[in-house]
């Protein structure tokens, strides 16, 4: 069983493309193997006849376990069969994708007169350098480049002899890193600078990144499961005691402000989005668009229906500014006086039905946005805190995500940050 993905530990035989007795030549597709990531085609590592299939379709085998024997048509394979039956994969049997030297092909090729699979070709297979011995083999220039790029080379798969990580592997890893979305999670990082007063923000800038093959497949498959946008939903219950206190305290200081919980939610959502740019994103068929700012659409019910005026760059704005802007936009929305640019082009939306006593609901994504947060009513509820039942203000929120752009864990991490800040709004002031 060859290593077909960097994280693969075992593979399931999806389909044999050759049957016993077939002639195979090196490089010819031999089988399809399901790895943890995808179904991969495995190529024959040597010329000969497919003498014996050891792993049947649907069966799995750990890396290095012989899955078949290729040999001469008339060769005696009984010895090899005996060895191959044992559960312990011999080092030499870890078949490389492309044998750099003939000895490596001995892995599944039974040659007469050879000492047997266990004795030959140690370490010529292309596996992560650390796989067998725990030691990483890396060329000096590759180590230096990885170090300078801040890459952990233990995660890189080496393509040199014995799995040595060489320059081209690090170059490939650096390229991948540059195209991957930046990883920013947790609240430990400083929040973005506050926006200057009086600055008017236009629609958020963005960068478009190519949709990877995997992402494209996810998109294609999921879209058939639920409407044109494959939604999934994540719900979280939030202890709102401190948020309610914060709101009350601010309103006591500034009675004219009339800060609402929804204003706080907008701010917290915006700040969380900046920390999880993967959620502040839009699936654009060939690319995924990641926005720089959190332009939050706020659903407002009017007599004529739903409209979502936008708070641009909400992560940069102070709470009083958000409160004033929401109120002003909502008033004009009800008066049908919004300009198109004031209600189109949000990067994320919030829909709050709490005022109607709705405890929890799911919202439909407003394309091309990648997610929407449905906010339920805040109400006192019995919560277990530190093993004690306590009556706390709680609120349930449900995040709808476009699975083409956002995966479950990605959405969940965003929601975790949102909940964390919401439950302790002091984080907002650690700017």
């Amino acid at each position, binding site marked *: 069983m060859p290593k077909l993905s960097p994280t693969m530990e075992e593979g399931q035989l999806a389909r044999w493309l050759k049957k016993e007795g077939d002639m195979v030549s090196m490089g010819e597709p031999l089988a399809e193997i399901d790895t943890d990531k995808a179904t991969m085609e495995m190529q024959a590592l040597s010329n000969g006849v497919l003498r014996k299939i050891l792993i049947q379709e649907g069966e799995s085998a750990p890396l290095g376990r012989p899955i078949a024997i290729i040999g001469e048509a008339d060769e005696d394979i009984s010895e090899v069969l005996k060895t191959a039956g044992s559960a312990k994969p011999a080092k030499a049997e870890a078949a490389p994708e492309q044998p750099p030297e003939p000895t490596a092909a001995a892995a599944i090729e039974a040659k007469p007169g050879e000492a047997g699979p266990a004795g030959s070709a140690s370490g010529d297979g292309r596996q992560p350098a650390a796989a067998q011995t725990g030691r990483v083999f890396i*060329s*000096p*220039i*590759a180590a230096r480049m990885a170090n300078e790029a801040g890459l952990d080379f233990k995660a890189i798969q080496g393509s*040199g002899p014995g799995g040595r990580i060489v*320059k081209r592997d690090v170059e490939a890893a650096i390229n991948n890193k540059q195209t991957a979305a930046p990883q920013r999670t947790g609240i430990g990082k400083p929040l973005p600078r506050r926006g200057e007063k009086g600055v008017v923000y236009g629609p958020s800038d963005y960068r478009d990144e190519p949709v990877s093959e995997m992402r494209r497949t996810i998109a294609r498959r999921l879209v058939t499961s639920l409407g044109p946008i494959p939604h999934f939903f994540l719900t979280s219950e939030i202890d709102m005691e401190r948020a309610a206190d914060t709101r009350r305290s601010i309103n006591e200081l500034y009675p004219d402000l009339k800060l609402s919980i929804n204003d706080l939610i907008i701010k917290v959502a915006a700040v969380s989005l900046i920390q999880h740019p993967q959620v502040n994103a839009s699936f654009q068929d060939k690319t995924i668009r990641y926005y720089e700012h959190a332009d939050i659409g706020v659903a407002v019910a009017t007599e004529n229906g739903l409209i979502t005026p936008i708070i641009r760059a909400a992560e940069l704005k102070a709470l009083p500014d958000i409160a004033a802007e929401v109120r002003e936009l909502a008033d004009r929305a009800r008066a049908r006086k919004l300009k198109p640019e004031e209600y189109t082009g949000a990067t994320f939306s919030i829909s709050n039905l709490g005022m109607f006593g709705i405890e929890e609901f799911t919202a439909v994504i407003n394309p091309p946005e990648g997610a929407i947060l449905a906010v339920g009513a805040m109400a006192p509820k019995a919560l277990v805190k530190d093993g004690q039942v306590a009556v706390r203000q709680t609120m349930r929120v449900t995040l709808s995500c476009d699975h083409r752009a956002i995966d479950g864990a990605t959405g969940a991490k965003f929601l975790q940050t949102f909940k964390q800040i919401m439950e302790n709004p002091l984080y907002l002031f650690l700017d």
Partner: protein
Amino acid sequence: MRDALNLALKEELARDNSVFLMGEEVAEYQGAYKVTRGLLEEFGPKRVIDTPITELGFAGLGVGAAMVGLRPIIEFMTFNFSILATDQIINSAAKMRYMSGGQFKMPLVFRGPNGSAYQVSSQHSQALESWYAYFPGLKVVMPSTPADAKGLLKSAIRDDDPVIFLEQERMYGMKGEVPDDDDFTIPLGVADIKREGKDATIIARSLMVPTALQAAEQLEKEGVSCEVIDPRTIRPLDIKTIIESVKKTNRAVVAEESHAFASVGAEITAQINEHAFDYLDAPVKRLSGADVPMPYAKNLEQMAIPDVAAIVAAVKEVSYM
């Protein structure tokens, strides 16, 4: 190449009366390989001198002449015969300046063909550069083009230290542009980048330079851009140019005609490891002559020296292709 060397000798004999030429068959016969053609006629028997078959003897005469202020050029018919003269070359020429506390200069050139020829077998096909490069006090020069041959030989003759000037019999017929400027010299100790490239460095000298250039051309078609560096002078060695190239390409192949063990290639490899270790993407690959006395049979002789295919394969190996 033959004519370029001849031109250098002629120009230097004309330029400086203290220069004279001595060796077996250099005068009447005009040189075993005709490098000294026409020189006896032009400069007379006092300056172009035939010797008996006594390498140790005339090498010693050269050392003595150099000590009293002349500038001898001693031709060995091939460097295989210099083995007989090594006591004079190593014990006298190489050390005289040092042991006399600088009182004697040693403006002496030993020149002649080195390395393989065509089917002259074990005793007449030896590449001896590592012998002479080993001893402090000698300069060792190995040209690979007619122009380099002219410029380097003139520098060697004008140099006040003893110079071992190693030609290559297979290359005497090589054609190339040569500046006819009679003051054209190439400084000793300066490598030449014969071809620029970015993916791998091939360090080659003498016969291996044209071979490496052919290999580089072939590799270019396969998408590998090779830099070919000719050190030209083995002592002093321009290691800086080599290191800079390896730092750029991260891969090095050292090709040489001589045997591998304790060779000049071994020295270059060691120095790359010392100075460019952090820049290497693969172990330095050495290609050397086979570790056997040179076979007489033509097919075996061919197999005993690195060829284009071997260099191509070596570059691919260090490029993980």
